[in-house]
């Protein structure tokens, strides 16, 4: 764990190399101008506590936001799938299942016949 300033309690728990890594990988941060990127990274490198804390908080927010979106996607997809399977395909599914059962039965009968 690397901290810019060991004396600061506020920065405990913030891993700076990890923060820079997350910054580089962040889709939101990719939208920043080069100048802002450079200022932020320089601020982090120089141990600007406020910038580090706020950036950390912001990257956390992005994680939460992405999580929120992913959950929404999951939730909506689940809703749709459940609805569709229940309403639209129910009959067809039953028919398919029955057809498969019939085929199985027929195969079983043929096997039985061949055994005789």
């Amino acid at each position: 764990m690397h901290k810019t300033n060991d004396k600061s309690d506020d920065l405990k728990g913030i891993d700076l190399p990890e923060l820079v890594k997350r910054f580089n990988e962040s889709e939101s941060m990719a939208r920043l101008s080069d100048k802002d990127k450079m200022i932020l990274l320089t601020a982090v490198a120089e141990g600007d506590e406020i910038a580090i804390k706020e950036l950390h908080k912001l990257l956390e927010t992005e994680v939460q936001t992405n999580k929120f979106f992913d959950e929404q996607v999951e939730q909506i997809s689940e809703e749709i799938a459940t609805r569709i399977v229940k309403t639209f395909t129910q009959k067809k599914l039953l028919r398919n299942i029955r057809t498969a059962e019939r085929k199985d039965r027929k195969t079983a009968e043929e096997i039985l016949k061949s055994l005789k």
Partner: protein
Amino acid sequence: MQKHKQIHRNLTNICNPLFEKRFIYNNEVPVNIEDVARKAAKSAIQQIPENLKVVIEQAQKILGRGGQTMEVLRKNIGSRGAEAARDAIKSLGSNANEAAAKKVAQEAAQKVAQAEMQVFKNAAQEVIAKEAARIAAEAAARKAAQQAAGQFTRAASAQAPKVLPAVTNAIRGLLPAVGSAGIDAAGAGAASVGAEGAVAASGAAASTAAEGGAIATIAGGGSAEAATATSVLGAGALALSAIAAAAAWGAAGYEGYQLYKENSDGRMESKGTIQERAAQESARRYDPSSVDADFNAVEKQGNSRLGAISRLGRDSSSNLLSESRLYDMGLTKKVEQKNIGHGETSEQVVVSGERLAGTKERVQNLIRYSEGVRDRIKSVMEAAKDKSSPEYKEAQLTLDALEKSLAVAKQTVERDRAADPDGDEFKKAREATERAMFEKRKVNISDAIDRLLPTLATVEDPDKDNTIAGFNEIKSKLPGINTQSEFDQQIKPKLNELQNKTAEMLKNHESKKNKESSEEAEKQKKIIEDPNNRNMIRAQAKNIENQLRGLTGDARALEQAEIIKTAYDQSHAADIAKDTDAAVSKTKVLQECIARGRIYLEKKGVPLDEVSKNWSKSTGVDASIATEKKASETSPEGLNRQKEDMKNKLGQALKTLQSLHPDNEKDQTEIDATIVKLATAISKVNQVQTQKEMDDLMKEDLMKDVVRFSKPGTSPGTEISDGGAPAPAQPSSLSSAPNSPSSKKESKATKESKEAAEKAYVDKIQIALISAVNVFKGQFQSAGENISTSGKLADAIRNAVTSQGAMPKGFIETDLKVDGLDINIKKNESNAIVTMNDEQISAYVKNLMDKKNQEKQVQETAKTQEAVNSAVSGTNIEARSPEVTKNRINQSLTGQNLKDGTYTSGDITVTITKGQVADVKASERLLDTFSLENQRAWGRTVMEDRDTIKTSHEYTQAVIDRAVDTSDKMNRNIGYLTNHVNNSLSQAAQTATTKIVDGDYHAVFSYKNPDGTQLVKANIRIQKGKASFIIPQKKE
């Protein structure tokens, strides 16, 4: 140490690509410092989104502007996702079982959902990025403030070892790759990484940054004063705006450093410093003595000696040509400006002059280096044993190319020398600029002091008066200062001292205010958290509600009381959730409610001072904000709130009425009439634009009626029945009156009664028609195009009339006009016959359709433009190959409904065909920043290409001329000549290294016919290397 290494690595990794892009900024004009300061101050005082909820809300707002909300998004995903899910299930065929179907359906829906959600995600990312930009601005501000406080030297010394290696590595890494662009970029990058790295390296410049900070503080004070005056942020504003203003100066210095560095003492450091640095770096990198080392390095990579020298030669030749090109362009511009008396400022002349000087120096370095490479190539070639090997041939070609590049570069240097032998023009321009900049800085300092003084006057500090006097003294001295050295001696030390003092005062002031602010917040928090106070709040709220109810029975007073109660409930709920912040916020809502109640009751002449006093006493919250709220009452937000409240009430009443089904026809008729009234009232509330209109509307009989119906606790049915038939509304759009018959036999009373009944009937129909047409329009807007037709509109109009119940006895006929539609209603026995103009109806529907389509088109275009903007801004153009750029943009746009067309976003123009990115084009400005190779990839003909093409054209023309000249004099005709030209071209193509290129050429020859010899001019078109035909133009 480990930590530092890691940070260095990160910085280096990030800086390298950034430096390349930095070159883009080279052409930017110097920014207006004060504008930037104001903007930065403004942006810095914006509230920070504190949590995810706020981010999401903001993202929703962004999407809302494009007409897309989360709900719409869900609906989109719903229909499209369901479709995808169905298709996926179908594809399963006999393999379908419920589990498999669910799985494929979910996967298919997920794909659609992810694509749709991307839009939302982009918006959220945009919000987060904006927030990050704010953090960056504040970080820059803190740094500037730190410098101003005299901590710069220490900070710079500490950071120099960290920053400089990254800068140096970036410059070294970029030089061979991007040639001159790299040098400029690295130079600009060095300036950008600020000011700190470069300045710290040269100790003399350190004081410059501190001086910049001084002015930053002064400007900060000025902005702080503005912020304090507005009392928006209270105690925190002073510090915040000081920081913001300092950021602005930091940022301005950041950009400005590329041209001039702004110093508090009027001293100008020109961009020449950067150019000089780049030139020094270039001299180091292209020192002829390093040829051997470079050669050995290439050879060590596994190349043969000939191969290594060829590669070195190619690189050298390419760099030389690139630099020469830049040099030539700059020189051409300079010469043109000189010749045509171009209206550039002396500042601009200095900038372009210095840039040109830098380029020239680099070219000269490269010439010396390339000559070293050339000699090396020759010596390696001489030593080569096999002089027929492909490698030897390649080395020969490289040598030729290098010689050519050297000739071009030397020619340009010579041209420059001839254009301005002694460099006088440049020198004069520089002196003039320096003088102008010095004067400008004096004015800036004086202005900044003017802005600072009023704020300083408000600071409580024993040394304040002396400081103010000191600033005034500086101001009075400034006009008499004419040179930099005078400034350094007479002004600078005092200014530094005063700025340090001011910074200290502002800091103390800020911490004092912060302390007060936090104490106040703590006090509020305690009040809210105290259960006794909460009970008291509850009691007071109830008390006020009761008082309001008791003092007046008016609906609006009750409304205020209800709001208070709701606010109290919310406050209580917040308390339960132990969310103190929310509780504070809700209490503020309560406070507002009380204030609103006070305003209202004051207007009514009801004394509520006692209530306010009690309130303040019991809660400690100041309720005397009524005066402030008077303004907000008429604000757009206040008006909108009123409108929403009213609409909610009316809507609720409408719903209640619709749910009633009375047994008798009379009640049903009355309810129907009231529904129409409510619908009309909602429509009128919607149209309200100002508080006055709202007040006027509330005075109308119609509104009085509907407000009465919508009162809580009243039953509309009962209200109507008890009061008998309500007074008919008087819609303003009423355009005609009934053609009532007259009867002499009727008594006057009977006649009046009949007329009143007819009028009431016509009014009722009119309202029903307005409502029906509005409803139709609403349905049309939200429904698909094929759902609503002109037939439906006609039906709606007929139904509106026939549903109004029995027609009065005396009624015969009436002509009405609703939204431009002419409607005739005639009585036939007891039925109403409704006649409309079919063409009008069709035109009306068509008009609606056209508007809807038009809106849709505009929305689609705007949405696509927004998506393209987002995709382009999210695309790292550093990749810069058109294919990669296109793919990335396409990737970002995947899953979005795009409208075909051409969209320009910044420097990139995107053509969308069939919903896909078909083409991307970069602006000329952007192309200028690319490498030659990449310029070619983007379809630009670069200078080398142009040279080659030109040469090849000339060569081809020469072959044609020669063929014509050497053709058989006695036997010339077009067919013969064509063959002869073709043979010559074919021969030339096989033997010469210069290319034969297709195109249109000219030929002049004499043609002998039986009448004599004629001179013929002809065009020869070469296609696929052959003169396919010759067109005689005219005979002379």
